[in-house]
């Protein structure tokens, strides 16, 4: 519970925003995140605790009630919960082998939105992210300029970029500069 002397949370990109005619770049609100690892034979049990089935196909995600699981690897998911509820308690009861590690503060989310969002990302991401090959819901760990990111398409013209905290300044600056040129 919050106390009067509780430490103040200072998100890495506090107060930053960039907006251009075709695209906006905005820090995502703080969220609960888990790095979830589990072998195939535990996926069922973990899914049940999570409240929905973990996606099993590469480059796909699943979500329910403000909680999303992004497939990052054959036994790895990034769980992002923006509903304000804690994810770990439910998983704590799962007996099947898995690893759930809190990475809420490790990652920073940046939302890139608008008709120029795709072009903004394509300034630094070598993957084919056109809608046909990277549809809404698609997600992937990949590269943006000189850093690693997780890219998640949450809408036709909206992406969420997740990166590690100390790279968020680079990511945000890169995306803001690329957004200037997003009328491509």
């Amino acid at each position, binding site marked *: 519970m919050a106390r009067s002397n509780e430490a103040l949370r200072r998100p890495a990109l506090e107060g930053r925003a960039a907006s251009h005619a075709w695209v906006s770049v905005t820090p995502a609100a703080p969220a609960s995140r888990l790095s979830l690892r589990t072998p195939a034979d535990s996926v069922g049990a973990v899914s049940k605790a999570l409240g929905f089935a973990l996606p099993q196909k*590469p*480059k796909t995600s699943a979500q329910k009630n403000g909680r999303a699981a992004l497939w*990052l*690897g*054959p036994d*790895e998911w990034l769980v992002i919960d923006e509903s304000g509820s804690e994810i770990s308690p439910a998983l704590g009861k799962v007996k099947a082998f898995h690893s759930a590690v809190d990475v809420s503060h490790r990652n920073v989310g940046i939302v890139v939105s608008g008709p120029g969002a795709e072009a903004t990302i394509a300034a630094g991401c*070598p*993957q084919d992210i056109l809608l046909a090959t990277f549809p809404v819901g698609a997600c*992937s*760990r*990949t*590269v943006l300029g000189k850093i*690693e990111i997780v890219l998640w398409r949450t809408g036709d013209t909206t992406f969420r970029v997740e990166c590690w905290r100390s790279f968020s300044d680079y990511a945000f600056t890169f995306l803001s500069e690329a957004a200037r040129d997003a009328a491509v």
Partner: protein
Amino acid sequence: MLLIRCPYCEEERPELEFRHAGEAHLVRPGNIAEMSDEDFEGFFFIRQNPKGLVYERWRHVHGCARFFNAVRDTVSDKFVTTYKAGEKKPVIKGAAE
């Protein structure tokens, strides 16, 4: 920049997402502490480095993060195939044994 098919992501991805990880199919012996000097030299130091088809390891380090194996022609720089770690070494015509 090469395109590399990741056997776990099941699609071709840009080389920037990958990192080369040396010769493939070298097995660390279970009794490594008991190896003779000669055997350890062969295991740890000696590499084939042939011209032509090579079996090598890659890691999709900025992707699914899996290590996997590949057969690549060092002359044309073309990949013949990629396959998951632990899968049987494919027999490719023209490759050194």
